């Protein structure tokens, strides 16, 4: 029982961060029907950004550095949008897949050349919480808290601000929103920027407790796809819940089976959801 509780807690805390990463992917899909295959490397860039801004680099506190990472992620996303997404937005899906995959390869190529693939460690510890069966590092607790905070901020932004409403309008009907005077190109760039920002921030949070290299984002990109399908394509809130489900699975399954069964179960679930609930457990949607 102790092992079950400890594993579930570990899984759920990580699930919040998985959910945050998946929110970026699902937001971009929801607004512009683009599956961003550069999602993984952007997560990895977020890891490197907090590493170089944080104690091993410029010396900022990692959680302060997260704010800078968020701004950099937003700008970087807008740049990617204008360079590789904007022109093929109305083309077939394959064009956007190839285009974002090219960005993926460029980031990994340049990242490998600059950073190599030697794993980096933040060497950042703020103690832990030990009671009953639980022994949880504070970095994971704070990571989960930040993930919830960012998810809440995104919700408020999308539903309570003019820019957020503009994003939702463009997602629902771009032509009509343009007729209403909404600058769709800038709105789409902002959406892509926010999606990228969420990926970068989730990467930065992960870097505070796991080692990483430029190749590390691939794992989280795969998890994000599973979560997005679980939560419903284009549904950011569903993504957060999907992240929690995946995290809980990753925590609970190893209590009863060897850990190597976890990806098998995850991807069987992925296929089952695609077959029987293609809109996800919480329904697909537009932001």
């Amino acid at each position, binding site marked *: 029982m102790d092992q079950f509780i400890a594993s579930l807690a570990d899984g759920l805390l990580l699930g919040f961060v998985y959910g945050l990463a998946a929110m970026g992917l699902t937001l971009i899909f929801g607004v512009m029907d683009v599956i961003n295959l550069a999602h993984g490397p952007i997560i990895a860039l977020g890891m490197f950004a907090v590493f170089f801004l944080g104690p091993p680099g410029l010396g900022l506190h990692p959680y302060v550095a997260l704010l800078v990472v968020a701004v950099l992620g937003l700008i970087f996303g807008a740049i990617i949008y204008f360079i590789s997404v904007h022109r093929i937005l109305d083309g077939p899906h394959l064009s956007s897949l190839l285009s974002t995959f090219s960005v993926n390869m460029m980031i990994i190529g340049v990242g490998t050349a600059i950073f190599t*693939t030697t794993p980096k460690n933040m060497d950042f510890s703020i103690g832990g919480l030990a009671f009953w069966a639980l022994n949880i*590092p504070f970095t994971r607790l704070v990571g989960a808290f930040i993930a919830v905070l960012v998810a809440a901020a995104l919700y408020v932004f999308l539903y309570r601000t003019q820019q957020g409403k503009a994003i939702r309008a463009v997602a629902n009907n771009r032509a009509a929103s343009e007729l209403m005077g909404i600058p769709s190109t800038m709105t789409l760039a902002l959406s892509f920027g926010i999606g990228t920002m969420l990926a970068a921030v989730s990467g930065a949070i992960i870097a505070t407790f796991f080692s990483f290299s430029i190749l590390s984002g691939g794992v989280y990109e795969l998890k994000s796809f599973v979560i997005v399908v679980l939560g419903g394509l284009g549904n950011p809130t569903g993504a957060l819940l999907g992240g929690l489900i995946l995290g809980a699975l990753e925590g609970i399954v190893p209590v009863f089976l060897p850990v*190597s069964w976890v990806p098998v179960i995850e991807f069987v679930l992925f296929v089952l959801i695609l077959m029987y609930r293609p809109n996800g457990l919480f329904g697909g949607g537009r932001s």
Partner: protein
Amino acid sequence: MKRLFLFVILSTITALVAACGGAAPEPAAPAQEQPKAEVAQEEPAKEEAAAPAGGEEVVTIGYTASKTGKLEVPSRGQTRGLELWLEQVNKDGITLSDGTVVKFDTKTYDDESAKERVQSLYTTLIEEDSADFLISPYSSGLTDAAAVIAESYGNVMITTGAASDATYKKGLTSVFQLYTPASRYLTGAIDMLAALDPDAKKIAFVYENAKFSTGVVEAAKAYAEEKGFDVVLFEGYDSETTDFAPFLNKIAAAEPDAVMGGGHFNDGSTLARQLYEKNTPVHFLALLVAPPELQFAELADAALGVVGPSQWEPQANYTKEAAAAAGLEWYGPTVAEFAKAYEDKYGEEPGYHAGGGYAAGVILQRAIEQADSTDPAAVKAALDDMNLLTFFGNVKFDTTAESHGLQQAHEMVYVQWQHDDQGNLVKQVVWPVEGQSAEPIYPLPR
């Protein structure tokens, strides 16, 4: 106009990526490779040397290195060691009895830590680059793939950084292992635990699902059970694992006295770090590959007390006197000479991967001297007859048909990270007792 601008930007970025040598599928530019023109100039010298009496013969050594990917750290040390040997041996070359001076050229490619790339790259090294002798890539998995190619072309391959026993039990005749085989990697750690704590009874094995580490822990598990230990957990993890929480929870539930396993640097250092962060209650932690690496000290307090089997350490007590006492031939530089040369060149203390890279060259050098020829069959026969002590330890190869080339004489040492008088983390040799540079810390300071 805008399309043209976009095209120019994309072309520039693509060119930058290509220039940086990112993750392109083509072989990376050989680190030691000379420009084609220079290689071409050497060809006549090579042909000239084939004729006896006093010429210079340039022998090509081919190998792949993991310049990218998960094996980058240990592979870098191995490559540096080999490059240092090349630099030193090429100063004077090897003089054969007919006056021919043998010098070495190298051809190398980045195998990206990928087993799938190794066979085609070694084929290229042999067929296109005309490599005369081969040095293995780093890791058992990659070497196992490369060894098949070496054998099929009849090229002598010295393997280093590759401990798996299985490779040498396939009837190969051209492949010679420098490292202590995997089956003997953790047995000393089990002996050490038994000596430190006679009450310790439970061991958990958590290991990377890879050829080398699986071979090590299977042998160690059998040895532990033979010694009366109870193996309470025996589970592998994927090579790319970064979250060990499920394993830590299983370890906590099994309440072992010792945890052993790991696999390579990335996963091993992450496992050690997370065991420390979660304050998982274990008294003894022995991991493969990672602890002997200098970068392991970056884990700070999480590294303290962690034990690792090492093929060699700078504190190793291999001397000419020891060779004489054991009735063995001594060959090559002393431990201090190698360590100083390495530190002078690279500015850091050599680890065992670096020592292995250098020693692979030394073994080949001695075999060519003994054979008095660069003929593969003669060099192979010299390797079969070899039984010598170097700075890296005793080297003697199995010559039976069942396990030809398997290392028979080399022994492991066990290091542990401890604090020195100034509070800095330093590696100490703690096992075997006769080679100790410090008393082991037990239990783990947690």
